[in-house]
């Protein structure tokens, strides 16, 4: 039995009186493609924030690569191999596309790289996602889909073991969704474990080997896409009684 790369055990997160996550348990295995879905407000982003370190969970534990990462600030979790993209792209607006990638390449890296190596690595990633033409353009001049791609590229530049894609396809056209989807599939082929949070069902169904469903802070389903789709609790969560 392969040990899980990420183990979320009994994680609870409160905001004042509001319980955003209620004893959530999720295991993610190396090389897996996991879909994380649930109605709005079910706690998906909160879970991502707790895993990445932006938020601290009150109770429960999170183990990554066998080690307890509670208490580690977000930047150290990134250095250990957890990378996430943001739902609403947050580019470094004063920098060019290339410079945006240089930040994670320089800071999340586990060993030092010569500046020219950094540029080479950055260009390689940009070429992979199709943004190499825009390398020296200011990031605040990009289109929506380009910003989404940059967001993913930045997470890729952190050379993660686990990549969490937080609604990377929201608001994109059908072709653009396919673009991002093939990108994520390619990354997974290179060995990166991916958690995809999405509302676009056809993408989640095609992408995921396994789906976890959250509702009102609790996990209500955990199985293959076919199983989850037929799960009455899931249907109730999305459609009501």
């Amino acid at each position, binding site marked *: 039995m392969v040990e899980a790369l990420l183990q979320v055990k009994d994680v609870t997160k409160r905001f004042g009186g509001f319980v955003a996550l209620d004893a959530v348990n999720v295991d993610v295995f190396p090389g897996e493609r996991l879909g994380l879905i649930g109605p709005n407000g079910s706690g998906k982003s909160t879970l991502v924030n707790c895993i*990445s*370190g*932006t938020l601290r969970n009150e109770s429960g534990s999170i183990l990554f690569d066998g080690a307890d990462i509670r208490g580690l*600030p*977000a*930047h*150290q979790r*990134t*250095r250990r191999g957890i*990378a*996430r993209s*943001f739902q609403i792209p*947050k*580019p*470094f*607006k*004063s*920098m060019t596309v290339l*410079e945006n990638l*240089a*930040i*994670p390449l*320089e*800071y*999340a*890296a586990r060993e030092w790289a010569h*500046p020219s190596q950094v*540029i080479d690595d950055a260009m390689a990633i940009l070429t992979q996602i199709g943004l190499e033409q825009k390398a020296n353009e200011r990031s605040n001049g990009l289109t929506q889909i380009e910003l989404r791609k940059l967001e993913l590229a*930045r997470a890729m*530049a*952190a050379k993660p073991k686990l990549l969490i894609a937080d609604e990377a396809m929201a608001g994109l056209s059908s072709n653009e969704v396919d673009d991002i989807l093939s990108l994520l599939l390619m990354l997974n082929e290179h060995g990166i474990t991916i958690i995809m949070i999405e509302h676009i069902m056809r993408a989640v169904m095609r992408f995921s080997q396994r789906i976890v469903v959250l509702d009102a802070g609790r996990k209500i389903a955990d199985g293959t896409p076919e199983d989850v789709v037929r799960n009455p609790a899931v249907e109730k969560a999305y459609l009501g009684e």
Partner: protein
Amino acid sequence: MRKSPVPFLIFIVVAAALGLAATRLIGNQYYYFAAYVVLQYVVLATGWNILGGYTGYVNFGVAGFFAIGAYTSVVLIKLIGAPMPVLILAGGIVAGLVGLGTGYLTLRLKGVFFSIATLALAIVLQTFVTNWDYVGGSRGVYTIRPREVPFFGNYVEFLFITMLLLALGAVAAAWLIERSWIGRGLAAIRDDELAAEAMGVPTLRLKLFATTVSGFMMGIAGAPYPYYVTYLDPASGFSLAYAVNSVAMPLIGGTTSWLGPVIGAVLLGTLQQVATVTISSALNLLIVGVNLVMFVTVAPDGILGLAREFSEGRPGRRAAIAAMILGILAGDSGIAITGAAGTGWLQLLGIAIPLLTIVGGGLALVRPGAGGVMMLASAVATGAVFGLDPVTAIPVVIGAVGGGLAYVSRLRGGAPAGDQALKNA
């Protein structure tokens, strides 16, 4: 990303050489007094900018750090008669440590609370010093300059060279930080702290670095001050003028590069020195305040940003930028010239009219027509009220030319391209 360090090094060497040469050639002491203040502001502005411009955290308590440097000197001079290098190092270290401490307590909070905390710190420090008799308390303390100093004719020249070296050192440090991976990390924090942290940037550690270095620089700026001013009291050591200048100079010069604070400090500092001769020092604050508000509202990237826009821009836009620069020149020189004229109503007019020129200049950047009208009107008014002799003609002519350029800009579509919303506001 890699630019040759040679031009910058040449700049440093030339500046140092010019400064040394000046002490041999210029005999009038007044210039050294004035230059000292301008150079002091180069250090303060550069120090402020490392935390403000590079990292995005506004420090209002500049006076506190400056005064730490000054009062550490007072203590060391009284205790052991320490020489200048020791004073500078000590002042910097103490101020740097205080910066580190303040940062540690408050940098986990949102930026605006850090800013409020820096203000709090300055006032608390001032209260302590006011009640500390060893350094003179509210009565102040006298510091006697050494009679003999090697190499230089007198002590004031020595102070000038000291501050020149400190300024060059500060600028070199800023340049190094800017080019380094630390500088890139700070920029990431400034642009989006949450994303930076998620991308592996140790934000707290870098912010603490920035506060410490910034505090250190502001401290070394204050260390020679007791010798410069000879009589130091909390009111002058903790003056809020340090804060407003240290904020204004980088914002006016440009915050993303080491050159911005230098430009801002030299321009604004020189202007204030000239103005102090002709008008009261309260008006210095007015000049700083008006220029600050003007730049921050219409030219947020400062003079460096305007220079960049000028080199990339369409002719209409260039005319607008030129109009703004001229308007500010006319207005600032006007305040110094006509603001000195007479008392009462005449003086108020001598200040109000050039202020309109400045406002007109700024307006020319976003609404060339209105700005041009304002500049031409105030040029005419200046001439009408104060007559046209060779001195008062300066603001009148510059203002009129600027107004004309604003009209040229309007005719050639000089309003900012992406700012249609401003026109409809």
